[in-house]
């Protein structure tokens, strides 16, 4: 049997190498070998950071690791570094490094340019795109484009990657934090211009919808293609607010990490319109080149707004959720589970609400009856989200970040708190909002040692399946894949610290899915999620087939459909 191949819906193969070295000019001239290898954790850094942070910073999905792990199809996501990661003062992970005086492995020029607003997020985006383009041209990877939709029918033994943009801030062409100033800092040597640099230097727009349209046009001219867009990322982008984001940054306490606003904005709607109706013109011919919207990182209210807007505008393209966990709750059950809520005023005066929601039990395991729970933070999907994605024939990528999957922290109650936009809190909890207790101290949200058993991953998968079987007529097993978020600053599951370990993950899923299914149903009820034989066992070939689907086939099929615009 040929060794199995894998799919990953969301990972960042060059991100860590990209931020290692700032290049003055565009395009990149760095050596290809340098770009495909692992992120170098220097020894001073190892001394500086604790084990947890080292796992986060360690290389998880460089090109060499993709090859080693036989990841043949996936989506390379680009998340331009946001300003909150460059805040020296917040005492978080990056603050520690930035204040350490270490010049490696991160290139501080990047960090300084972002913090001081000398560059635009858009420029960071196209610079990282350029790295992929060079790797593609060198035959190290293959970048997927709808201009060559057949390529997955007989793929070469290299990673085939589509492009995703993680965060609408990547569309913003003004200097970071200075929406009145066009970014004119990109220097391109004569003769080295390409469609992206030309568009950037000659066709400035401050309209994110137009920026999206233009970048897709420029990408197609280079035989690249943007597959999906995550509207928000981990911070509130004042200068170009598309939608309220979901709180998700425990390690950083910059004011922009706190959600603000109330769902999708006018600009956000314009970007969605542009994404779903996008056409590019090649050789004088208009071709549909829509961009999928990924619901990850959007606040719950933003997600609900999105579903309503799609309905209103009759948009039918699949919704995707590229690297998520689940709360285990429907919206109403989640509201019922609200425990504590209090208003907190940021130092700059804005109110946000800190909320604490009881976690839903996924199931118990073993003699000690170890309890597994879902992460109840609203960055994770509610049942309505799962339903919306499944019904749209979309794909759900389950994250391999233990925190997202429901890591348990027994030591401190404070760790359960998340933050929510004060306005959105009132949307969901109008009654509670009237009795909000006065500002309380910010909780310290530090990751701690926790259970990283593969059961946590199984429970997330099973909940998606369960919701799919109950709420839809879809075949949910066919709409689930892995969206690891490797190299997206995640704390990976212990059995699969990087992409080269995917085959270990496969073994674990085969081993634990049947166990988890019993535990899940015992706790949550519902019909069978796995077909079982009369003797109660799950037939091995069937089980292996399901796991194969999750780890490869479902994703591969989805990408094939994308390549043909879901025709």
């Amino acid at each position, binding site marked *: 049997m040929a060794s199995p191949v894998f799919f990953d819906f969301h990972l960042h193969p060059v991100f860590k190498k990209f931020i290692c070295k700032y290049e003055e000019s565009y395009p990149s001239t760095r050596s290809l070998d340098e770009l495909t290898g692992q992120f170098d954790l220097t020894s001073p850094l190892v001394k500086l950071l604790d084990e947890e942070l080292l796992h986060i910073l360690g290389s998880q999905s460089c090109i060499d690791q993709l090859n080693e792990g036989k990841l043949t199809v996936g989506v390379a996501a680009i998340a331009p570094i946001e300003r909150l990661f460059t805040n020296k003062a917040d005492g978080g992970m990056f603050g520690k490094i930035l204040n350490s005086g270490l010049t490696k492995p991160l290139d501080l020029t990047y960090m300084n340019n972002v913090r001081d*607003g000398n560059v635009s997020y858009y420029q960071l985006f196209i610079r990282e795109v350029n790295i992929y383009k060079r790797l593609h041209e060198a035959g190290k990877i293959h970048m997927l484009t709808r201009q060559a939709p057949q390529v997955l029918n007989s793929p070469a033994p290299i990673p085939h990657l589509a492009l995703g943009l993680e965060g609408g801030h990547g569309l913003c062409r003004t200097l970071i934090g200075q929406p*009145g100033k066009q970014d004119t800092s990109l220097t391109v040597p004569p003769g080295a211009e390409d469609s992206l640099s030309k568009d950037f230097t000659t066709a400035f727009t401050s309209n994110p919808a137009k920026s999206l349209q233009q970048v897709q046009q420029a990408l197609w001219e280079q035989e690249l293609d943007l597959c999906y867009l995550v509207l928000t990322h981990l911070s509130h982008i004042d200068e170009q607010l598309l939608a309220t984001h979901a709180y998700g940054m425990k390690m950083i306490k910059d*004011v922009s990490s706190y959600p603000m606003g109330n769902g999708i904005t*006018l600009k956000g709607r314009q970007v969605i319109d542009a994404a779903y109706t996008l056409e590019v013109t090649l050789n004088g011919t208009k071709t549909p080149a829509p961009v999928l919207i990924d619901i990850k990182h959007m606040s719950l209210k933003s997600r609900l707004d999105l579903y309503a807007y799609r309905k209103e505008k009759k948009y039918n393209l699949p919704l995707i959720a590229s690297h998520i966990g689940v709360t285990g709750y429907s919206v109403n059950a989640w509201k019922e589970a609200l425990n504590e809520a209090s208003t907190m005023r940021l*130092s700059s*005066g*804005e109110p946000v609400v800190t909320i604490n929601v009881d976690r839903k039990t996924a199931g118990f395991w073993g003699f000690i009856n170890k309890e597994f729970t879902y992460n109840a933070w609203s960055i994770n999907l509610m049942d309505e989200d799962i339903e919306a994605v499944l019904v749209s024939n979309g794909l759900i990528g389950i994250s391999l970040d233990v925190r997202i999957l429901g890591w348990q922290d027994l030591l401190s109650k404070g760790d359960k708190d998340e933050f929510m936009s004060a306005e959105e809190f009132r*949307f969901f909890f109008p009654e509670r909002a009237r009795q909000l207790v*006065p500002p*309380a101290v910010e909780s310290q949200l530090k990751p701690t040692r926790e259970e990283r058993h593969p059961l946590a991953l199984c429970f997330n998968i099973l909940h998606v399946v369960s919701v799919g079987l109950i709420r839809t007529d879809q075949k949910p097993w066919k709409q689930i894949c892995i969206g690891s978020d490797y190299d997206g600053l995640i704390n990976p599951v212990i059995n699969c610290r990087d992409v080269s370990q995917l085959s270990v993950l496969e073994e674990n899923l085969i081993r634990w899915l049947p166990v988890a299914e019993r535990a899940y149903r015992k706790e949550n009820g519902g019909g069978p999620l796995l077909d079982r034989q009369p003797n109660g066992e799950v037939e091995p070939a069937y089980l292996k087939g399901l796991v194969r689907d999750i780890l490869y086939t479902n994703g591969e099929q989805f990408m094939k459909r994308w390549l043909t615009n879901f025709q």
Partner: protein
Amino acid sequence: MTPSLPLDPTTLYLADKAATNYAAHADEIDKITRRITENRSGIRSLTDITDDKSRLFKRAAREGGQFEQALERINGIPDFQDMAILRKIVRASTSVCRIILQGPSGITGYGTGCLIAPNVLITNNHVFPNAGTASRAIAQFNYELGDNGQVLTPVSFRLRPDLFFLTSPYTEQADVPFSGRDFTLVAVEPTSTDGGSLSQFGFIRLDASLGKIIEGENCVVIQHPKGDYKKVVLKDIRLITFTDNFLIYEADTQPGSSGSLVLGLGTADAVALHHSAVPRKDANGNWLRKDGRPRQPGDTDDAIDWIGNEGVRVSCIVEAFNKLAIPEAMQPYRAKIVEAQTPPLVVNSPSIISMSPPTLVSGNAPRAEASPTTSAVSAAPLPASTSGKLLYFEVLLTDQSSLQADWAKRANELVPGLIDQTALFPMSQEPVARRMVYVTVRSSENPWALAATIEGLPHVEACRPDLQSLTDIGRNSAATEATIRITESEFVINNGTAEPNEEKFLENWGKSIQVQAALSNGAGRQRWWHWSAINWTNLNQGVPDLTEDEFRQLRERLAQMRLIQLDTGYSDHSKVADGYNTDLDFDFIDDDNDAQDERASVGIKFPYHGTRTASLVVGGSLADATSKLDGNNGLLVEQGKCLTRLIPYRIAQSVILIGRGKQVVDGVNYAIRSGADVLFMCMGSYPRPMLEAIAREAYEKGVIWVCAAGNEVGLVVAPALYPGTIAVAATNPEDKPWSGSSHGPTVDIAAPGEDVYVPFLDKKGQEIMVYGSGTSYATPQVASAAMLWKARHSEELSDYLPWQVVEAFRETLKASARKPTGWPQGYGKGIIDITELLNIKLPPKNTLTHAYKNQKDANPHSVGIAEAVHFIWNVFSKKVSPGATESTLGSVPLTQRGQQALAAFSSSSSSGGRESSSTMTDSDALLRYYFNQ
């Protein structure tokens, strides 16, 4: 060696009650005790013991500095204690005395007491249950051993329950308020039996606020156990939990003495009055002895297995003290106690004056509202540990990066008493805004003097106090009618109500151009006269070239857009009740999500300022359909439906806002970050760096901020005077400027503001409408127009940079303005013409100039000048409205710097005495210099 005592019935009762309270909190106690054990073994930090984040935050605030650093200090090094704390404890211990209870036949018992004011001591009620017991007792200070073990000479004082005696019985009694708190306060003779002075023993302030101690921290108990020499228990005694009225802490091996003072070791602040030990009990409720067997009759306290101690919380004592009734004769004493807890401090307060005096019609001056300028801070008890009040400063750091870094590292060393310092504009990339920090200091210094000290640091370019104060309403509420003379108008009554004044209006303006124009549309239309002046009827007529579909989109867009009102909050006046979006409001004064104008009731001066300004945008119909006074709807109301609902942010306590500038900045900042389209603000003040910075921030983020130019002060006020905002002056029905309107080159546009028809209450509290004047009433019309304009061009404007949106509005506004003949300078381009505004083309992006393009960073004025301006500004307000401020102005302490600055302006411009009319001229020169006008 102190003798063991048999257990008397009071002790039995109290200990039993304490045991019940203990049992009721068993889970919590169990949890905390476990965590304390973990802390002792080093696996949990002290600050991780409590689950009460609010308390932890307040505890940390007492440490000062950044939160993280404060936690570190609280956690400290195990078994190490700062000497400073010990010194404080020693100081506190001198105020603790032994109480000798005497009966007819001699000594009957002992207790412990403590001075909490220069001549008042506190002990338990079960020590002094009544005045009689107290009058026979002796308070003995200095009953302790000296350095060499010798007995010091005790100093004894008689007690004077006849002068002051206040008690809360140790038993809870349904008919006795605040009973069960087991404390007694009693006056002490100021001179001892042998002529010594009581004042040498000082006193301990009781601080009712939270944060003096957190669960798991150590307690220190100062006491005379069983009448023995004064002792302090320094063993590792941890606070376990807070219950409603009590603290529970770990047991000493000996039960403490009644009336002992419990201090938090971390802060050396008094946290409780010890009153009982807690015995261990078995399942049947029997007390257990240390040998595990049930208590036997005749057992002494030594035999009992005490598992905890209970003390009455200081906050509960203070609450009862504040609320318990006492005889009139004792009131002066009570006042002295309050005074002792709260060092009086007079602070100046920045004032923001409204631009809409709720008056009227007649040409009588003066018409503007004014604000009081100072207020004595009292009421809130101050922490005993530190003297002084929280003061706030806006600080502009130097642009030198080493000094900035040094400040970041050492601000708490550089500024004594620093509690906190945070970036004012953490999201801004504007170089000046990035250097602005907001500093909180605890100090009893004059804030201007302290500002000068801070400004003297090499790290600091400028420092201004952002003065906190009570509201004028708070100060005057007891005597509203007597102290407030707001206006000489015949229509507005001193208590803030009004009377209908249409007759007078028609008498004055019936023949005017705009009233005539309005009347040509029908009888009664005089109430809508400003609609004619601004050329507006409704959307369909205003933008006639739109298709049905485009109209629908325009309305949808308007419904989605955000119009924020920065004012006194909303009210339930039926004229506007349906026009507010009360899902998105916020109260930046009271820090909650309800921006209701809580002062909006009859009897309070100028209620409903926000209601009146809002009515011009979203005003509907009065609920009383029979009212003949209704009229004049909001500009964004069509056929009874609001096109946009107004989001109120309450940034002013009353129209005479006396609040901190930071609250305005917070409101604007939140509006910007939540995606506001248009803001309007009908209040202003003298220029201040942080208002300037937030005005620029709004501009850079593309928020159209429409501001009233100002009333009666002549000068255009902040924020209207900043380049980024849209400044609005007021006109009258003759299309002439209103005489009270501020004017100057920074004014962009004018709109009707004199005698505009707005909602009010009459003296019976009935909803009415009257004609009132102010740039406050001009401003909402321009804000409404901004909404219509932005909605109309929303697609096109998506391609403009954020600041270009504001500038395009300003340009279009000016280009479309109607300029009556003989239009004077300083009132903008003319009167707003909304129909024209919506129908002319947008200016191309490349023709627009950034409002700050040629703006140089001005050198900040010195702190002395700022102080003088602050002073003059308030004198000026006083002149405008004498009643509101005259009682307090005299107490404003000008620092020497302020006096010098003032003197400089006096001598330069006047030859006569400053006391006379020339004061005005001087003020004017100083203000014009400061306002740069």
